[in-house]
């Protein structure tokens, strides 16, 4: 890949990284959204879950509208009706983040069926956590995509916990890929903190998916840096050492180091990219703050479409 490409990606990394410092936390998992969405075109549709900011940005959403939505402003993606957990941008094929664990999966099967019927070689991708693999909805989605050979990329972001419950306690399969394998769904488990690895794995997946050979499953092993959601009250029962250890495996830092090491990126370039992004985030933030709140009676609109 050309330097340019890499830089784009680095940029995306930082987008994701920076933004989430001060809102809901996708921090620690950025490499996944970035590495996957890099392969998607506007016509490819994605479905996200409750930790969805990263997916929005990686799919090309407007940070201004995102920030405005998170601030509950009228200029937000959902006019302030959805908030952080329910950001969507149908114009770029981002079919929405969602607050019900596992619920994005059946919806994504529909998006994949649409892609199959459209016969244009487009695909759908669904992002979900290890916790979602505990819900029956997960299995119904695996089964349906398998029997209908739907072009759906399953992206399991295994950050090893559902709130404070360990995935290796709550999932008998331990190795999550055992489950899609039972349905003859191709896939693999990879290091979700290594953006290059994610990018490469997604590339292989795309080849299959776009040929219409059926679904593909990627388990991306990663870790969330913050608490389940940003909150003083909520307790984090995860071992401190574990958290620290993972912070050392920062997907951004390691990748930047690698690029600099390979001489693809210089420290100053990295710094300036960082500057640029900080500026954009700042701009989005300003936009959100400057935007008006919806009127109370706006609540009556959009219950139904015309």
């Amino acid at each position: 890949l050309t330097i340019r490409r890499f830089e784009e990606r680095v940029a995306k990394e930082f987008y994701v990284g920076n933004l989430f410092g001060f809102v809901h936390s996708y921090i620690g998992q950025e490499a996944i959204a970035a590495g996957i969405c890099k392969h998607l075109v506007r016509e490819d549709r994605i479905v996200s879950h409750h930790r969805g900011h990263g997916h929005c940005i990686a799919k090309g959403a407007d940070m201004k509208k995102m920030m405005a939505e998170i601030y509950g402003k009228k200029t937000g993606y959902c006019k302030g009706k959805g908030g952080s957990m329910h950001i969507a941008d149908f114009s770029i094929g981002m079919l929405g983040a969602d607050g019900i664990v596992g619920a994005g999966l059946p919806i994504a099967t529909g998006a994949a069926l649409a892609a199959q019927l459209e016969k244009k070689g487009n695909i759908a991708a669904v992002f979900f956590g290890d916790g979602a693999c505990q819900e029956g909805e997960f299995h119904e989605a695996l089964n349906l995509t398998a029997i209908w050979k739907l072009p759906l990329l399953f992206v399991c972001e295994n950050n090893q916990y559902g709130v404070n419950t360990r995935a290796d306690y709550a999932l008998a399969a331990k190795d999550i890929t055992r489950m899609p394998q039972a349905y003859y769904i191709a896939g693999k488990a990879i290091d979700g903190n290594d953006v290059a690895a994610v990018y490469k794995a997604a590339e292989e997946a795309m080849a299959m998916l776009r040929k219409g050979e059926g679904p593909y499953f990627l388990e991306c092993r990663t870790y969330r840096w913050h608490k389940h959601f940003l909150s003083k009250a909520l307790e984090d029962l995860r071992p401190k050492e574990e958290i620290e250890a993972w912070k050392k495996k920062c997907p951004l830092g390691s990748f930047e180091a690698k690029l600099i090491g390979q001489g693809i990126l210089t420290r100053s370039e990295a710094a300036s990219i960082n500057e640029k992004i900080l500026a954009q985030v700042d701009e989005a933030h300003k936009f959100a703050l400057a935007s008006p709140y919806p009127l109370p009676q706006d609540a009556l609109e959009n219950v139904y479409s015309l």
Partner: protein
Amino acid sequence: MREITYEQATLEAIQEEFRGNPRTVHLSTDLMAELQQEFGADRIRVTPIAENNFVGAAIGLAGSGFRTVANLRMATFGFVALDQMMNHAAKITYMFGGQAKFPILYRMTVGAGISAAAEHSISPYAMYMNVPGLKIILPATAYDAKGLFKTALRENNPVVSFEHVALGGMKGEVPEHEYFLPFGRASLKREGDDVTVVALAKMVHDALEAAVDLEKEGISLEVIDPRTLVPLDRETILESVKKTGRLIAVDEACQTCGAAAEIIALVAADRGAFGKLKAAPARVCGLDVPIPFSPPMEKYVIPDKAKIIAAVRRIMGLSPRL
């Protein structure tokens, strides 16, 4: 005019709309042979037995610009799919600020009377009415079924159609020419002066039979079928009650928090209608018990012509029985 069954009427509507629009899909756990022959196995799909999945798939299809008919068969199977139905289908238009349209028609049968016992005899439409975001239709005749389906299949919102098991085979006049019935417009099935009877689904027919019998006693019933529960035609009901001064809501579903409760409440809470009430409004509903299997018990718990007549006589200040 030609007569066809209620079931055929719904099928016709689907066929006509699917012909006009190639971006349409049908999902159900059983094979819809006629549809598959005409529209192919790509668009007419047999799903695994996984209702929650295909109710959700319809949402994903809608978000991708497709219109879907998802047939769940019995409303009891709908409970398996209520996450997708209530947390998503009902809210997704609103949560996302109206960015996208979700044209979906969900179908389920309701109703008791066939010894199907508690699980398979439930009529849960009031539960769906309590969750904003879904439109709800409840056709009682072949004519209404076709016209409401045609409208539902042009709707850009999730519509849930509840169809009473006893009506599927019932024949009725259905014109050859294309027609659409608007949502939120009740159907005045019979005009009358003494009592307004708002009846739902199969109960519309029982109410009409009761009206014939009562006419002989000189009591005239006005029988109104809302046809769509969401939106509900408040005006027609209120105007009728202002005329008759008496209201009876008849619904086979369980009484507590049912559609009949809503109808009574909206009339009682309307100052104009309240002022015109000559007697306490009444409900003739299914008893608040699960539907029993054995016929003598089943018959006892669901409303019928006789119970409607008794309620009318009571509200007219007469003894329930002749």
